[in-house]
């Protein structure tokens, strides 16, 4: 059986790499320290592969046939997609993939009632580029990306994402090769409303409420109360990206997470932060 050695979730807003300098000095300092700590924890867990779960920003999942989940099966990935280069202020990078792990997940999740679409031509914008640039700046940890539909309704529920996360954890533990070290990393959220009427607002109260649920390990309450409507109210266009965080939470069997950092960064038009589940197991 393989081992889950790190379970983590982070926000990925483009301002973190693109225009962090306009945040307050305290916010800059706290986010730099927080993401450095998250990166240290991820790298020191020595994963052989990162299973990354992030919302798709209408860049890959076709509008005419939108799957809930799509896994990347390529042996290597290149990012950011060209149009996003100057926006993100991230240099072009290459990161390895792992087709065998990706295909195993597709096959085994099919057998557990979860259908992942799959393809080898996924493009990365801020969703994976910002986490990779900040957490693994050497791009030396292979990534199996999963793009999720969180912002083109209907989207999967928090309960469905938690269930999928549990089954991903099961496949990792029971089917992937023995001794393989696996990190599960979700990226997305926190409260924000890209393009919407609350574009220049952060719902700090919602963010702190959500983080408290994680810190207290209140997964059942989160599943009951994190309705799609609740996400919309906290930032119509983007807060539902937090559905991705239910994947590692499900894989971690609903355990408590530790909040490493959080900042309600209005200048970045997104609540920013990250959590880690203390025991990957």
């Amino acid at each position, binding site marked *: 059986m393989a081992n889950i050695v790190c379970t983590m979730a982070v926000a990925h807003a483009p301002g973190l790499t693109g225009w962090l300098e306009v945040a307050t000095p305290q916010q800059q300092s706290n986010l730099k320290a927080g993401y450095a700590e998250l990166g240290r924890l991820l790298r020191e867990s020595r994963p052989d592969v990162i299973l990354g779960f992030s919302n798709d920003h209408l860049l890959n999942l076709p509008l*005419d046939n939108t799957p809930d989940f799509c896994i990347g099966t390529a042996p290597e990935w290149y990012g950011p997609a060209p149009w996003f280069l100057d926006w993100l*202020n991230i240099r072009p990078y290459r990161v390895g993939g792992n087709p065998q792990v990706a295909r195993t997940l597709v096959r085994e999740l099919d057998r557990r009632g979860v259908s992942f679409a799959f393809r080898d031509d996924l493009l990365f914008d801020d969703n994976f580029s910002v986490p990779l640039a900040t957490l693994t700046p050497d791009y030396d940890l292979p990534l199996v990306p999963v793009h999720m539909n969180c912002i083109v*309704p209907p989207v999967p529920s928090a309960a469905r994402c938690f269930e999928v996360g549990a089954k991903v954890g099961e496949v990792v533990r029971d089917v992937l090769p023995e001794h393989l070290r696996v990190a599960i990393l979700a990226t997305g959220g926190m409260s924000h409303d890209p*393009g919407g*009427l609350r574009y220049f607002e952060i719902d700090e109260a919602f963010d702190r409420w959500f983080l408290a649920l994680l810190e207290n390990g209140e997964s059942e309450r989160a599943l009951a109360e994190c309705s799609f409507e609740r996400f919309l109210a906290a930032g119509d266009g983007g807060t539902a990206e937090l559905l991705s965080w239910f994947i590692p939470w499900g894989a971690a069997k609903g355990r408590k997470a530790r909040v490493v950092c959080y900042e309600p960064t209005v200048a970045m038009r997104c609540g920013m932060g990250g959590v880690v589940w203390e025991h990957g197991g």
Partner: protein
Amino acid sequence: MSIVDVVRTLPSNQMVFHVRRDMALVQRFRVDLEGLMTSYGLAEDEKAAFRAQDLKRLAELGVHPYFLTQITRLFHGSSRNTQGSAAIQAYVKGLTGAAE
């Protein structure tokens, strides 16, 4: 304006989806928007909203809100996308008719 009001079949959504994936289409957006809109089958009210950068109207027609800011970046550039950037100011103007 909400993501629940998106019209997935709207030609404008198809066009913006594809443009951001392909730098050749980004270039065409800049130099031949009329031809690009015609090739994607945009209706006249969609075309008029793009010409006027009328984001409020685009949202009413069913363009995904996430695309609205990306449309302003296609028109005005993406670099240093702070509140004071041309793209963000165009977003504010396109929704309210007045810059911040």
